[in-house]
């Protein structure tokens, strides 16, 4: 027995290495996937190195230099490459710092939603019956309330803060994962290898972790990646509506909401944060689409 299982491990390790190499080659061949990866890496670097690359403190106000245009417009200078906002804060520095919030909120709330959704999806799919009924009707009721409205209400009740925002985004968007994991579990659990594992007396826990999870995980990763994109937009929307990130913290959505009032005279304040959001989300979508092509050709959008 031991030698067989050791062999299996060796074989899977080798094929794992090979698979990773193949993935790498295919990424280099897929132009959009590569662009996506580069964008995501660039934004991540920007977030990590923010204190070193930003020229100013993002919250520092300087009324003398308020509403200065970007450098290529008359009156602008390289001191403030993308201009300043209504309180004289440097737009570029704020965009650099804003990437931290976008990525932090985007990634951590997707992880939270993923864990909750994975758990309920597995329970609903694997145990079925009453559990399935309760969980799926809860999913249905969550889906009947537009997610942005749901989040607005909870944030109004709990009061906006960074951690609440992550909890709310995670706590309301788990339903997507629960639905997907449930339906995958339902189909995997009837397959022969699960039946035979059950026949030799494997426990539920072992069946779930060893047989079902590995078969569900690739669709899960694809959906999670694509959801980082929509979560970044949701965070920006909530901050724009005033119930997300609060000053003095910096968020691209918040910058947009500040800049909106000055759109007639100082277009740059609202324009650049939107460009930052669009490029970041585009990168994540490209990366997610590429992952989907590779990991899970059967799901479509």
């Amino acid at each position, binding site marked *: 027995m031991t030698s067989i299982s050791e062999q299996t491990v060796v074989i899977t390790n080798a094929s794992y290495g090979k698979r990773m190499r193949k993935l790498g080659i295919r990424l280099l061949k897929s132009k959009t996937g590569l662009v996506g990866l580069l964008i995501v890496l660039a934004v991540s670097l920007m977030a990590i190195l923010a204190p070193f690359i930003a020229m100013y403190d993002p919250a520092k106000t300087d009324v003398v230099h308020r509403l200065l245009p970007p450098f290529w417009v008359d009156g602008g200078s390289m001191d403030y490459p993308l201009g300043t906002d209504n309180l004289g804060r440097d737009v570029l520095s704020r965009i650099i710092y804003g990437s931290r919030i976008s990525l932090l909120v985007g990634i951590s709330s997707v992880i939270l939603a993923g864990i909750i959704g994975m758990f309920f999806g597995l329970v609903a799919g694997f145990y079925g019956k009453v559990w399935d009924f309760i969980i799926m009707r809860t999913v249905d009721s969550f889906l009947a309330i537009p997610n*942005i409205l749901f989040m*607005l209400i909870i944030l*109004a009740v709990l009061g906006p803060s960074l951690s609440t925002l992550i909890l709310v985004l995670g706590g309301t968007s788990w339903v997507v994962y629960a639905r997907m994991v449930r339906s995958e579990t339902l189909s995997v659990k009837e397959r022969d290898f699960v039946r035979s594992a059950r026949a030799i007396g494997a426990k539920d826990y072992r069946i779930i972790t060893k047989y079902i999870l590995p078969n569900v995980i690739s669709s899960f990763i694809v959906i999670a990646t694509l959801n980082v994109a929509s979560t970044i937009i949701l965070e920006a*929307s909530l901050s724009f509506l005033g119930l997300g990130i609060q000053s003095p913290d910096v968020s691209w*959505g918040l910058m*947009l909401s500040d800049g909106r009032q000055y*759109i007639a005279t100082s277009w740059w304040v609202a324009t650049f944060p939107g460009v930052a959001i669009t490029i970041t989300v585009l990168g994540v*979508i490209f990366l997610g689409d590429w992952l989907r092509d590779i990991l899970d050709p059967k799901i479509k959008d």
Partner: protein
Amino acid sequence: MKYLFQNLLKTIPVLLLITLIVFLLVRVTGDPVSLMLPETATEEERESLREALGFNEPLPVQYFTYLGDLVRGDFGDSFRYNTDAMALVLERLPATFELAFASMIVAILISVPLGILSAVKRNSFFDLFITGGAVLGKAMPSFWLGIMLILFLAVNVQIFPVSGRDGFQHLILPALTLGTGIAAEMTRLIRSSMLEILGQDFIRTARSKGLKEGIVVNKHAFRNALIPVVTIMALQTSTLIGGTLITETVFAWPGLGQLLVQAVNLRDMSVVQAATFLIAIFVIMSNLIADLMYRMLDPRIKYD
């Protein structure tokens, strides 16, 4: 019929759960009494109002009283406007419907020709351009697009009004804002649906009969390709309504979305509840209709 009935039955626990979720949310808001009375009110006055409103009862009892009120259509009064909350919500509904309808028209006008073109000219320059545009449309936050449209078409070139609702002119920018996002989604859908249909045998048969390509594409392929598109779009009702919250805020469009955002910011919970229920019922109904429509449009799908 049986199928419809079964699905209607399924919506009952969902509606109950929604009432429970909203009830819990509203009750966690803290003491509504302190919002209703002036700050100078004495503790006794607060206590008597609490008793009058039934807030001293245990939570389950409160929940059932609350359910009873809902069944009678009584959502309470808005403390901001001092009128019936549901009446307030219903009054805003036409504006939102107008915007949603116009956005759908914009979305259809953009996505149908582009989706068909990119499927027919698959992998061409057009296709690349259109699919690229669709991804871009998905990546842009709608409120930013709205602000940019204001910048270009209402400020720089003063073609359209910046905000408000006063005739057709006012409708165009909000409808473009909301419609573009939907169009991006729909273009991708129509393209992939068309590609699937164009590869099927009956299309080859139609072509080999010597039918003109235009007729094959428009009559044979597009009609069949529409089935999944219509269904998936009807399932997007929730997203569409979510979109109106933001678009209406950007353009000061006096609809349900704007009312809701204001009510949430003011913690005017009666209005929030009334609107949330109305939206939830609307979403559930349109999902049901989508499901039925899917079955009617495609007789191959069996009723179970």
